[in-house]
């Protein structure tokens, strides 16, 4: 799922110094699950902003709403009137939600409250780590289900670099596992170590972000 984290409060408050009516909109899907932008965090943000603006903008009125999923126009639509009635919308969704709101209500001023970071999984309650970089050409079959793009700091495709030590990556040995150690261990375990004998050619990044903004169309679903 998409994992995001709340922006520093001063950065958010900086844009709201002369806002009279603020609408905070939360999203109860990905960002709620990673404890960053659901209804609870919306309430915390509202309270924190009242406190942050108590001297410079004490008259600000803050309305709080949360919806199912901010990347769907149908879920955003009921907010139309309220959006029009407020000066600024602070979206606590991921970057996709923020932009959907902005596209759907082009006259509205929509600011992000979160920094959207990566696609990842929870390791345990409160800890999420990156697993997928959205490269557009999944090769997890070749690497025992461990992604060398998302999990190797250097996106190496043919084995570890010299910075692999005790199964950790030199970039941050405390927090980052060496992906190639993981790949080796996993392929050994499932008896597919011979896959590493195949040389993986340089990655064609055109399917990823580097090829420009992407679009996927299911022709059989579009009339």
């Amino acid at each position, binding site marked *: 799922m998409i994992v995001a984290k709340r922006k520093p409060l*001063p950065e958010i408050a900086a844009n709201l110094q002369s806002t009279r009516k603020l609408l905070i909109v939360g999203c109860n899907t990905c960002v709620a699950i990673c404890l960053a932008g659901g209804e609870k965090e919306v309430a915390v943000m509202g309270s924190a902003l009242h*406190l942050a603006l108590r001297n410079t903008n004490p008259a600000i009125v803050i309305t709080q709403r949360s919806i199912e999923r901010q990347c769907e126009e149908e879920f955003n639509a009921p907010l139309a009137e309220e959006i029009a009635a407020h000066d600024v919308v602070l979206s606590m969704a991921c970057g996709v939600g923020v932009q959907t709101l902005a596209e759907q209500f082009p006259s509205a001023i929509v600011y992000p409250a979160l920094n959207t970071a990566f696609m990842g999984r929870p390791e345990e309650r409160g800890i999420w780590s990156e697993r997928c970089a959205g490269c557009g050409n999944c090769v997890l079959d070749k690497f025992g289900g461990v992604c060398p793009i998302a999990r190797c700091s250097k996106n190496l495709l043919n084995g570890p670099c010299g910075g692999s030590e005790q199964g950790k990556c030199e970039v941050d040995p405390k927090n980052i596992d060496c992906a190639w150690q993981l790949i080796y261990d996993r392929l050994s375990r499932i008896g597919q170590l011979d896959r590493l004998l195949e040389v993986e050619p340089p990655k064609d990044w055109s399917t990823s972000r580097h090829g420009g903004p992407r679009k996927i169309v299911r022709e059989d679903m579009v009339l």
Partner: protein
Amino acid sequence: MTEGNKIVLLGCAHSAGEVVADLAARGLALPAHVEWVSVPCGSTIDELLMLRAFESGAGQVMVLACYNGACRSVDGSLWAEKRARAARALLEEAGIAGWRLQFCNIAPNMAADLPQWIEEFREPVVAEESK
């Protein structure tokens, strides 16, 4: 809104609650500017509760929970302390001095200590007022 006189005590019923009841039974009510809010356990205390206390006009918030190893739900005091730390960081970001939010462990038999802690907690505010 903040920097007011009010001190909010957010306390676990099993420890702080017993202390407050003990003080009341001895005829030692909490000072008028102290608002006592009881929660069932330290685990119930989250950032929202603490922030709203400041929003409602409290100048200071004291979070009270049982000692580690004395919580009926085991982790209550650990949760309360962690959440207080996160709330303090958010308060600092909002420009409110972190010392205005304090976390203390307390046991049910510490009625003698609480009034003193409150007085000490209030000292910086009193000092500021008299400037």
